[in-house]
């Protein structure tokens, strides 16, 4: 519908998807675009989508790497479909055209559409546009590679190095298209390539050349995208994994304890280990263990020794850690286990997102083995929930699983930087000096938390371990009645955490025809879908869970006021079966998807509208 007479297309929000070969630098291109957009006042959300292989076969559909940015006003998701697709080669077009809105624009690198590349991408003819039936799209076929070569021909750089900058040409075109400033990106070049001024200049030149090319060609109609309504403050972009790492450091600071992270590399959680290993300036100790079990075991050792101890992993690693989590349960030691969920079972889809570890987190251990489970719901609130995980672990002397997922881990959004002054102190129940007759399993009557005596403290020498413990004294006990008592105490201790967590919030009216329920990383999509339905006058509300075990105390009160309840999650219904077991009195409908992909708002609305229509 774009009318060429219009000078500018005005939109509330736009989705742009950069795609190319996994070596084409699409993740960087997308990141630079989103950083600039956030800096210029847009709301943003991003979604990187890349193959598990480091160097998947070049030019093939399997090797395509994509990065989607949604920016503008009131942004909560990276967007379902792209308004603008950048495809650096035929494989990228093949893989991503289906994610582009009908009538949207597709920018392709004309030079990359050679017979050989078309064949590699699986095209049968020499006309990809016709073959994929893309006539309804606004195709901008730009000679990106050759213009890049032309721009840098006098620099003396070799052809291979020159072509590495072609992504910056495409980025420059997009900057023209969306009226973005170049300065933020130019500053990035200056700091990133500080030691090689020639590279700074080359990238700047190509970026500018792309911008000018956009200005000069007729097919590109610039967009004007609404800015977000932004609360005043200091902002930065942050992804979920960095936010998680920082939240853990914040918890250690507020607890006045050292932070220890024992981990083993695993996609998509490894960046948390990377970030923490970098933070030696804040005294963080990271221990890259020989396996997942040693990761958690070393963390349990550090916890025994009085640190805030964490281990970070993904689903397969959580499976390996189960026995050790049980040890932390019975010894009642504080421990944070971060599970960045990915597609399963087994190795599954390492770089794709899913919510299918929930039941594993809740129940995946031998014995009656209750722990606290919480989930972050946006990339930036991974900070808050990592902090919460540390706080609950320390104040309640328990393992806590923090669930995030691949979508949150790698997704970014602008974040209003909080002041640490607004975060509470964390008070671990360390035994007070002068306490007489210390017993490791003597409990605080209010929350059933035991006191923590740390090796090195004179007078409190004691033994703990994986054998059942005698109530209060902590001596080994096989007494049947004592096992029942201790089992009940451990369960009750976790249940009592509910007294300290916030109520479940309802977005919309507190009663009506349909309550949409979600948890974890699907928040943005569910919120957007429900919000659009509410604007259309539908009787639908939304409740999203961050606290899973224990559940917020008002959960039953929220559920009972709706005619229908639907639980939407990226698994086959794990939260639904959990809620059924806790509140069997309600009827729950489900909307599930297990494709390694986030929801689309469109599919959610379709489904929820159908539910509203059903009698």
């Amino acid at each position, binding site marked *: 519908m774009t009318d060429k007479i219009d000078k500018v297309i005005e939109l509330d929000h736009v989705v742009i998807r950069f795609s190319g070969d996994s070596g084409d630098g699409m993740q960087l291109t997308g990141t630079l675009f989103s950083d600039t957009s956030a800096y210029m006042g847009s709301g943003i959300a991003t979604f990187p989508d890349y193959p598990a292989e480091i160097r998947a076969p070049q030019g093939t559909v399997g090797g395509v790497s994509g990065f989607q940015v949604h920016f503008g006003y009131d942004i909560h998701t990276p967007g379902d479909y792209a308004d603008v697709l950048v495809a650096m080669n035929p494989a990228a077009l093949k893989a991503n055209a289906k994610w582009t809105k009908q009538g949207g624009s597709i920018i392709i690198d004309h030079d990359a559409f050679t017979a050989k590349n078309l064949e590699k991408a699986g095209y049968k003819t020499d006309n990809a546009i016709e073959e994929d039936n893309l006539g309804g799209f606004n195709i901008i076929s730009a000679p990106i590679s050759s213009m890049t070569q032309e721009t840098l021909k006098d620099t003396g750089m070799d052809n291979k190095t020159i072509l590495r900058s072609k992504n910056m040409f495409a980025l420059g075109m997009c900057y023209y298209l969306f009226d973005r400033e170049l300065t933020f990106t130019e500053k990035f070049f200056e700091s990133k390539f500080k030691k090689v001024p020639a590279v700074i200049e080359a990238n700047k030149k190509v970026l500018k050349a792309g911008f000018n090319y956009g200005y000069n060609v007729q097919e590109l109609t610039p967009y004007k995208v609404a800015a977000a309504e932004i609360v005043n403050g200091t902002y*930065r972009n942050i992804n979920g994994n960095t936010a998680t790492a920082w939240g853990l450091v914040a918890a250690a*600071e507020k607890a006045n304890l050292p932070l220890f992270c024992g981990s083993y590399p695993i996609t998509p959680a490894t960046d948390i280990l990377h970030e923490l290993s970098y*933070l030696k300036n804040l005294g963080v100790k990271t221990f890259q*263990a020989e396996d997942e079990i040693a990761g958690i075991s070393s963390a349990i050792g550090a916890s*025994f020794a009085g640190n805030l101890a964490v281990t970070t992993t993904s689903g397969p690693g959580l499976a390996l850690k189960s026995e050790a989590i049980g040890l932390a349960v019975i010894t009642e030691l504080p421990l944070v286990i971060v599970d960045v969920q990915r597609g399963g079972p087994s190795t599954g889809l390492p770089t794709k997102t899913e919510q299918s570890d929930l039941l594993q987190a809740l129940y995946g251990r031998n014995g009656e083995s209750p722990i606290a489970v919480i989930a972050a719901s946006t990339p930036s609130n991974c900070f808050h929930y990592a902090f919460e995980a540390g706080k609950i672990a320390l104040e309640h002397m328990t393992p806590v699983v923090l669930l995030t997922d691949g979508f949150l881990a790698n997704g970014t959004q602008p974040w209003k930087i909080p002041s640490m002054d607004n975060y509470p102190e964390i008070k671990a129940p360390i035994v007070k000096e002068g306490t007489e007759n210390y017993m490791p399993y003597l409990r605080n009557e209010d929350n059933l938390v035991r006191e923590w005596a740390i090796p090195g403290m004179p007078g409190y020498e004691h*033994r703990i*371990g994986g054998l059942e413990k005698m109530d209060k004294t902590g001596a080994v006990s096989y007494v049947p009645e004592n096992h029942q008592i201790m089992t009940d105490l451990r369960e009750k201790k976790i249940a009592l955490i509910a007294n300290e967590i916030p109520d479940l919030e309802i977005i919309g009216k507190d009663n009506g025809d349909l309550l949409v329920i979600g948890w974890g990383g699907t928040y943005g999509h569910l919120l957007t879908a429900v919000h659009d339905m509410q604007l259309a006058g539908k009787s639908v509300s939304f409740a999203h869970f961050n606290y899973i075990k224990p559940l917020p105390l008002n959960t039953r009160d929220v559920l009972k006021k709706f005619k229908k309840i639907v639980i939407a999650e990226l698994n086959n219904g794990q939260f639904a079966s959990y809620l059924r077991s806790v509140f069997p009195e309600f009827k729950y409908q489900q909307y599930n998807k297990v494709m390694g992909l986030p929801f689309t708002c469109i599919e959610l609305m379709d489904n929820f509208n159908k539910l509203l229509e059903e009698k």
Partner: protein
Amino acid sequence: MAAEVKLTFKDFKSDQEVRWCAGCGDHAILNSVQKAMAEMGIPKEKFAVIAGIGCSSRFPYYMNTYGFHTIHGRGAAIASGVKVANPDLSVWVVNGDGDGLAIGGNHFIHLNRRNIDLNLLLFNNEIYGLTKGQYSPTTKEGTKTKSSPFGTIEQPFNPGELVLGAQGNYFARSIDVNMKLTQEILIDAEQHKGTSIVEILQNCVIFSDGVHGFYTDKENKLNRQIVLRHGEKMIFGKDNDKGLILDGLKLKIVTVGENGITEDDILTHDAHEESPFLHWMLISMKGPDFPIALGVIRSVNATVYEQKLNAQIVDVKAKSSIKNVNDLLHSGSIWEV
């Protein structure tokens, strides 16, 4: 340096009833550990005794120190976390041969590779006792056990060889019944900075009784054991006249006074030698052709893991302008709205 600490072995006894079988070698080892710890000059609260699972792993319950009875095989990994988190502690791991070398084998080799300053006692009785008599990674090939009724078909590990293969810096060996030697080794292991592996040949009276009998046999033990001490000649035997020399690339037993051999010809033990080759030969010696080597066989100084980690932290802290979480949150690309 530290204030004088006067402790006796009784200070290290916990109020728990010791539940090992009567005659089990663990009793003697427990006494040796308690006596040795009393002499180390370390306050009681600074000891952390960590164990995995197995008969020997009940050890922490009997020690009046901080103690942690963990899960099967993970003692070394958990103790690594304890020591890295708080390098001021004196950390002791108690492992059996199944716990330490089968299910926990991965942690055992990586502990040696990292050289974390803790002491690991490997009680080697060549059997799984607590599960009632299956063969372990140190059971001699051909041994009939409950899970190998026709004899094992697996080659056993020699724990010391594993230590060397994993680039370990310290290996000592004792026998449960030789409490004096055990104490001497334990004190040396505590003083050694780095991972100290102490293998203690231990007798299980129920499932592998007499497994080390060849070496402990009262009549012949002096001919079948050689106690190595750094700087001393490798001499042994009832009459103190047998010695070890190098014959080409192999060890050879000779008798002083025979064939022109004098004491000067006998090898002098150098536990501090970095090259592991002679240590390897000493560790590998076994009957009936050779005596078994006891004592501190290898003790090489190398920087320990937690020192290197702390040095990095000190260095990065000094250079960084980020002093707290507020600074961190405001680092890098930020903007005002």
